[in-house]
């Protein structure tokens, strides 16, 4: 298990390193004045000259990459010259909002998806199973930003059940959750469909296994067999899919943050792109990719922990 974990962590680190370095390389090698790219169009000529010298922009690309990582590792993500604050500050104050959004979406998809999937498998070929099957595909197919727009229109603007903007009062958990419910649901809906389908399929497969027959032959209750013995095995593929799916959820989070006017990495990047604020774009990318890769890694390890067979591989 330890060796497995070590390998996965190493691979994850390598992926983040290469992914960010590639992006950095594109940014500094693109035609145009890199000081404009890195400082934004509002920088004064003096600032540019100083920056050029400080950053060693005339050094070879490889040296610049090494220097870039040196700065990152020492905690310096650069300056947000548009608003005169360190990039790290901007990024790390936005990250918790996006994390809440993504974990909220995972909460929706895990609870609803697993319930629907297990229920469908338990009542295979009933009309409820069929309805769930069609609904799942519908959920998967609906683009998340259309879901976000429709739910904003229906629940916030028309029915006024939920707030239209913001992330709620700082420190007030109830208000935060209230503001979180709709956007995270909009992101999670597609994943409810995915998880329901995966859980249903793997549940049906699991229910055919011999050890399920054993459990029933030993007189365990049907509920215990299905929701405890079988489900424990059947949710494993769903954990993996949700881990990888966080990438997609981060993309959806951009829309949810803009549609519901929430702070977060997505709206931070969006604002920075419109303002050509490259250091913030770079920092946000680093954090977003790092977050995604970490989550996928955790899902992988959780899976290995839940499934003892995995660890020997």
């Amino acid at each position, binding site marked *: 298990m330890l060796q497995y974990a070590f390998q996965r962590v190493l691979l994850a680190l390598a992926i983040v390193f290469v992914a960010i370095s590639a992006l950095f390389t594109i940014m500094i090698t693109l035609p145009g004045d890199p000081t404009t790219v890195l400082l934004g169009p509002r920088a004064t000529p003096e600032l540019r000259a100083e920056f050029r010298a400080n950053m060693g922009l005339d050094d070879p690309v490889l040296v610049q990459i090494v220097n870039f990582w040196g700065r990152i590792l020492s905690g310096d993500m650069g300056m947000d010259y548009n608003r005169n604050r360190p990039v790290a500050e901007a990024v790390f104050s936005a990250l918790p909002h996006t994390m809440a959004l993504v974990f909220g979406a995972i909460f929706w998809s895990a609870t609803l998806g697993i319930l629907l999937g297990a229920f469908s498998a338990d009542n295979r070929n009933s009309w409820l199973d069929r309805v769930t099957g069609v609904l799942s595909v519908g959920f998967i197919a609906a683009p998340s930003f259309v879901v976000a727009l429709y739910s904003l229109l229906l629940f916030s603007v028309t029915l006024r059940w939920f707030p239209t903007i913001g992330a709620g009062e700082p420190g007030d958990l109830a208000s935060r959750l209230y503001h979180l419910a709709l956007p995270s649901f909009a992101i999670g809906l597609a994943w409810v469909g995915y998880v329901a389908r995966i859980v249903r399929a793997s549940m049906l497969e699991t229910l055919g296994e*011999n*050890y399920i027959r*054993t459990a029933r*032959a*030993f*007189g365990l209750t049907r509920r*215990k067999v299905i929701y405890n*013995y079988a489900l424990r095995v059947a949710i494993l593929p769903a954990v993996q899919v949700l881990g990888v799916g966080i990438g997609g959820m981060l993309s959806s989070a951009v829309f949810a943050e803009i549609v519901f006017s929430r702070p977060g990495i997505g709206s931070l990047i969006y604002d920075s792109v419109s303002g050509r604020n490259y250091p913030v774009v770079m920092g946000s990318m680093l954090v977003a990719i790092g977050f995604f890769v970490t989550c996928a890694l955790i899902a992988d390890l959780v899976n290995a922990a*839940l499934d*003892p067979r995995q660890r020997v591989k």
Partner: protein
Amino acid sequence: MTETLTVDGLTVHYATREGALQALRDVDLNVPAGQIVGIVGESGCGKSTLINALLQLMSENARIAAGSVTLEGEELVGAPSRRLRDMRGRDISVVFQDPMTSLNPVLTIGRQMHDIQYREKISRAEKTRRAADMLGRVGLPDPVAKLDAYPHELSGGQRQRVAIAMAVLMRPKLLIADEPTTALDATLEVQIIDLLKELQREIGCAILFISHHLGVIAELCDRVVVMYAGEAVEEGPVADVFNTPSHPYTAKLIECDPGRMKTKAALLPAIPGDLPDLTAPPTGCIFRDRCDKAAEICRTSPTPSAVTGAHWARCHFAGGGRQ
């Protein structure tokens, strides 16, 4: 002699697209208390259907068309599912064929053995103690440590010992062993057979032992039932049946390859011909098409005829017949 298990005229049909598949037809079977009864037959003879019917855990398209199954006088067919569940694992339990797949891979051995004892009103520590005790009794080294192990960490033979320990943990009245040695190699097979014998003496349960392997049946069982195409065709004390087989099918099984009595075989000896189509079984004797002795009379169904006291065969020529 009291009977632990009595099966009387059991008939099971599967609904298929081609019509009702008559997987078991009018099967009679007795397992006396404290005895080991063997069932032998080729694949497709209805052994698995029989086990599922005994446990009342049948697939959705299966239906008991007639007959009864009683455990110590209590009728199981049509019994409330609550009552059945109550009896499973406590009064009647099973060791399945493949130890690699019959244990839950994501739960520890200890957890699975705990769960079986869910009906017992005893402390967790006591349940753990009983589980470890039973693991020790089936001959697993270091039983306490084994409780924390996952199935994949054990060898095939060890897993089958665990499966047996789980099956006898509640001291059932009837233990069904469904080819428990088929997936194991020959040395392990002998060990498992010895273990079953020993446990049977200790616990005093009756055992229904299903096997392909005539030699194992001969060594382990008191009585044997020979099944063919969904019917019990011959039954009797092991020595009588194997020494004086009275149904042509039994005779074929034994004569086809006498060497198999001693060595392990995955399959029964090949007998020319195919199993009859069970969606439309022929009238008369079920073995007629493959039987050398088939005669005009075999177009009518034979009834069980006694050979000696407790030995009978479902053949017109058996016992006092015209052989």
